[in-house]
């Protein structure tokens, strides 16, 4: 089948998307939030959090992180239940309250698909979050193993058990030392 049409080019979200994408502050109903799990959602309840940094190590406050994940059973729920969206705050910080996903692709480690949007980013970036307590599955994961060994750590969220629950730390570095691995897929 020949491709007759060309893809519409990407453009930046610019600096002024928050009132449309994360509009709670403006008294509007959001399409999606950073709270994917309710109390009844089956699975291990976790928080994923981190800071998005630019090439000089400065936090980025006008960034949006979106995630798409399976539930604890490894299946994608119907609709948009596995989708989350969080804008970074003045400290470049984002978080998601969710459940740890099960295995959705046979042979892959549990993971979450992540996209990053910001002013200064003409096309969005795509990456993938893995879990630090899945050592054996990560070692056999067909995507992680395509990544140079010295960069794999950038894709591993670090588990910590804190008084409020389980937190996975996943910083995103757009450029420079410790630059997060981004994918073309």
């Amino acid at each position, binding site marked *: *089948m020949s491709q007759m049409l060309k893809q519409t*080019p990407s453009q930046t979200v610019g600096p002024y998307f928050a009132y449309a994408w994360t509009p709670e502050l403006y008294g509007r109903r959001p*399409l999606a939030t950073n709270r994917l799990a309710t109390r009844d959602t089956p699975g291990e309840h976790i928080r994923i959090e981190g800071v998005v940094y630019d090439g000089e190590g400065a936090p980025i406050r006008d960034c949006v992180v979106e995630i798409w994940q399976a539930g604890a059973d490894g299946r994608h729920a119907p609709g948009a239940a596995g989708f989350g969206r969080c804008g970074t705050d003045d400290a470049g910080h984002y978080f998601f309250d969710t459940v740890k996903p099960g295995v959705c692709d046979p042979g892959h480690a549990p993971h979450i*698909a992540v996209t990053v949007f*910001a002013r200064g*980013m*003409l096309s969005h970036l795509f990456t993938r979050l893995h879990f630090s307590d899945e050592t054996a599955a990560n070692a056999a994961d067909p995507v992680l193993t395509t990544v140079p060994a010295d960069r794999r750590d950038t894709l591993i969220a670090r588990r910590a058990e804190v008084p409020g629950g389980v937190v996975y730390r996943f910083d995103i570095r757009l*450029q420079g030392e410790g630059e997060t691995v981004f994918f073309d897929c």
Partner: protein
Amino acid sequence: MDTAVHEAEGDFTPRDWAQHPPYLSPLYKSTVLRSPSKPLIPMKQCLSVRSGPVFGHDSVDPLDSDLTKNGRVNGEPVGERMIVTGRVLDESGRPVPHTLLEIWQANACGRYVHRWDQHDAPLDPNFFGAGRCITDAEGRYRFTTIKPGAYPWGNHHNAWRPAHIHFSLFGPSFLTRLVTQMYFPGDPLLPLDPIYNGVPEGARELLVSRFSIDVTEPLWALGYEFDIVLRGRQATPMEG
């Protein structure tokens, strides 16, 4: 359709980098510290990304597609009323039905509702500047809004953004996600704009809407058409 998870039939076509802007585009200064320095790593498409969120009609209120009404406080918003409509298609020309679009934009004076926007131009109490809609079975969408104004920005001396509307689309997969901007035909600011010009020549013209007298409604609103093409399916499904 609203409850279906779009699972894999086959791989999606790759992002066509002859169409999309590179991450580093130095004339747009904010890209300098926000672009990866290392090449993207190719990744096989697995189920976790071939699937994607599906937003149903409960995600959209009836007024969400009419920006001339969804921000009213005490009257009508000021400016040139316009309709923007078009189709969402894949690269084979097939419609992308029942998919969500989000738009956001400045008001007629070139001022955003966003709290950080310091441009010395008035806010319009009756214009919020954000909307959503879901395409119909033929991939059509339609918004009623106010034509946005141009506004200055700090990228370089006397820099002005051409009038534009931001578009965000999901499509059937996490891989078909697209954020873009729609521009207006004949805008003299386009050749000067590093964001528009960040797109390869020959591709950027796809971001310019067409004026349409057929879409224009007599005594009411000017009409513009803007079709959007998302990544489609590979011709031959790959075994996964």
